[in-house]
């Protein structure tokens, strides 16, 4: 859509630009599919009874009442609302306007509400627990996606997020076990993630190796190293080397008493609070500071950046190292963040989910964070529903986040465009 391309013939091009909006029929179609899905649930698997939403925990100062709704009428009302949203989006597209983001959010929340009402019929949903767990599960994904965003914005594709998370988890467990100080484990994890990032940067920038290759290989290397040392060193000396202390929960005095938000957001561990800071800092830094401007310039057009005196390769190296440190910090969630001993391949593909969140979030730290939260929510939804008992086989619930992602990526996001120079080494001669 750059105006420079259209420079020779501006007038007819403007008309062409207006008509390109038509392509976003995807949103109404995706909405329609989800609405039909909800109707199918209501028609083919009706649930009798009531559904209760529990909005407070026992320890809250301000107690909210439980909300109990009759299952089927609520589901049908939700379906009507979903259908209205679908019709509205179709109307918008037909009149050549875009479907706004808030409509997508409203639709998603409505659909989730309807689905929860249906799935938890005859039981109570602990809303606080559901959201709290979602945030917890999203923590490593958010750190990982921040690392991915930074790396790609500066022009280095970071597939090694998985390796950085795992290295962080391993180092955090070992250092925290030896010293007994989780905070030292946290620092060690950042150093470990940074080292993986530096190896990635060195191979990608100094030796011009394909960044995807280095990333994939580093993942294998870190899995191999950590598993080797786990079997050979940690497992025989588990008491001394692999019994990490955990971070205590630190409720923030006033904020933690806000209904719903307080227990979910402000009764967390240091790792989570650092995450809030990291998201804010990366967002602010990337779009409102000189550092971020230079970083993005290097990722979009290194030659231009070089021309104005930015050291392209140095910028890339240190920012990839920084990204590695952030991912390493995220790795602490697995061990000292949860008080679990290190185990082989314990990140279980979180780095790849984080990578998906980066692309899903269109290389924007805030959107990537939201995508990571979506993954966290979907994973925790399964945990919650399997506890209260749901009519769906647990495998299908586990599948749900991934299916939703495919629909979302295909239906709502579509073709995404990353930083222009990501993946290309910059060679100055």
């Amino acid at each position, binding site marked *: 859509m750059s105006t420079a391309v259209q420079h020779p013939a501006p007038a007819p091009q403007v008309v062409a630009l207006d008509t390109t909006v038509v392509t976003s029929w995807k949103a109404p179609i995706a909405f329609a599919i989800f609405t039909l899905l909800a109707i199918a649930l209501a028609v083919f698997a009706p649930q009798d009874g009531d559904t209760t939403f529990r909005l407070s925990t026992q320890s809250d100062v301000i107690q909210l009442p439980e909300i109990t709704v009759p299952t089927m009428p609520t589901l049908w009302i939700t379906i009507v609302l979903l259908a209205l949203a679908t019709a509205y989006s179709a109307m918008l597209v037909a009149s050549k306007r875009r479907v706004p983001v808030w409509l997508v959010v409203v639709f998603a929340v409505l659909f989730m509400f309807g689905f929860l009402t249906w799935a938890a019929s005859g039981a109570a949903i602990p809303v606080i627990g559901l959201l709290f767990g979602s945030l917890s599960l999203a923590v490593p994904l958010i750190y990982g996606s921040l690392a991915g965003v930074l790396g790609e914005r500066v022009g280095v594709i970071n597939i090694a997020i998985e390796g950085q998370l795992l290295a962080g988890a391993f180092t955090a467990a070992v250092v925290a076990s030896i010293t007994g100080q989780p905070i030292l484990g946290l620092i060690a994890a950042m150093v470990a993630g940074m080292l993986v990032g530096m190896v990635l940067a060195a191979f990608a920038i100094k030796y011009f190796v*394909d960044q*995807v*290759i280095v990333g994939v290989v580093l993942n*294998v290397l870190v899995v191999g190293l950590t598993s080797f040392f786990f079997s050979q060193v940690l497992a025989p000396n588990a008491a001394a080397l692999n019994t990490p202390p955990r971070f205590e929960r630190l409720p923030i005095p006033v904020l933690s008493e806000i209904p719903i938000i307080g227990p979910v957001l402000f009764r967390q561990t240091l790792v989570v609070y650092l995450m809030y800071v990291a998201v804010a800092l990366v967002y602010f830094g990337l779009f409102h500071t000189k550092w971020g401007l230079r970083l993005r310039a290097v990722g979009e057009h290194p030659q231009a950046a070089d021309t104005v005196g930015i050291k392209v390769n140095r910028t890339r190296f240190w920012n990839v190292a920084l990204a590695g440190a952030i991912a390493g910090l995220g790795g602490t969630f697995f061990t000292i963040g949860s008080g679990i001993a290190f185990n082989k391949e314990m990140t279980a593909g979180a780095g790849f*989910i984080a990578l998906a969140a980066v692309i*899903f979030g269109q290389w924007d730290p805030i959107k990537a964070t939201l995508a990571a939260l979506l993954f966290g929510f979907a994973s925790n939804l399964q945990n919650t529903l399997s506890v209260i008992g749901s009519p769906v086989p647990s495998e299908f619930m586990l*599948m749900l986040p991934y299916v939703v992602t*495919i629909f979302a990526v295909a*239906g709502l996001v579509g073709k995404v465009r990353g930083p222009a120079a990501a993946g290309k080494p910059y*060679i100055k001669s």
Partner: protein
Amino acid sequence: MSDPRQPDAVGPTGSSKADLDADIAIEEPGAVSPETEGAEEDARATAGGAVAAQPTDVPPPSRWHSTLHQITTGNAIISVLAVLLALLVGAIMIAFTDERVQEASGYFFARPGDTFLAIWESVSGAYSALFQGSVYNFRRDDFISGIRPLTETLTFATPLIAGGLGVGLAFRVGMFNIGGRGQMLIAASVAGWLAFGFDLPWGIHMLVALLGGLIGGALWAGIAGALKARTGAHEVIVTIMLNYVAFYLVSWMLRTPGLLQAPGSSNPKTPAMKETAIFPALLGPQFNLHFGFILVVVATVIVWWILSRSSLGFRFRAVGENPNAARVAGINVPSMYIYAMLISGALLGLAGVSQVLGTVTTGFTAGIDAGIGFDAITVALLGRSTPWGIFIAGILFGAFKAGGFSMQAAEGVPIEIVLVVQSLIVLFIAAPPLVRTIFRLPDPASPKRRPVPNVTQEVKAK
């Protein structure tokens, strides 16, 4: 690994982005013949900032000189040295974590010889177990049982080669297929279901199960291809997500009676495959090597033919090099994505089928893929996305796998050391300048023969 003079020996044009086509620093400028454009680009990239040698400006050097030059700068020596380096790092890891070494190093200054002896014993013990587990076991009496490890290597290599071909083919079209796990699981499920659920005559049954598996894998990957072609959905996301979907789908089918679960059992495991569908053993019943290896050889030839001799392969490579240029040239880029993913999925499907019909015929669980879908990525990278390169890389990794198990059993060295060595090999091979610096080899683009232009440029920027 690959023949340096092979004109199409471009590196993996792998990407998590369609426009990422960095086959950089893979090929050696001194070794590749400079007729092809790809080779020139590689040379430009590898020369550390120098633009490609312009061969016409340089008088041809003497034959001796060029032969020596090729040996010291060529691909082969880099590959050999990379393997040596990786084994050296592995040796250091084995030595440092060995208990005997740690014990002896406690009194290192009193009797340093003990430490070195312990290091030698731990490392040589581990590596001779690796060799005896993967190539030839000297401790056996006769040749037949001595050569058994080599057939084990080929058995382990079979799915790795098939998977590597699938990932490599997608790389050549500029796509990154991380979905090997899901494609293998679906293919294995379809092939397994056909193999244990039906009664057909010998031979036909096997073919039906094989074809079913290939189609299953192809369609599963085809979802990602079709979504990329129709909606632009990124294939990396979709294939990762499909991995999980396939895993949970297969897990559910495995624990649901009437689908894949063995009748009368409560384990999430299928019944054994019927005799009529099992791949026949190639070398008799005492060896595990099965017909799947022949299929993989055939698949390698087919992929080679597709990529370098067919018009489809030409279009594939054109799209992989530059999708915009390919579109301008009249190639239907979206349908190339679909075809490539279908073929790639079928090849990964072959890996899955060879697992259920060849290697594990007593019924399978959701772990049947055994991480091969991800190992295949490394194999494809090591083989530089060329069919025969992948073939050799697959056999090398098969040897590591076969040997790794016997090393773990005999010496107690965890098999994960194999992952470390494998990944280091790929890393070193991908970075020839690093290996050259370590061993002080001459730079193929020696300063005398290389004009250094005073320009700044970005490699392959579009």
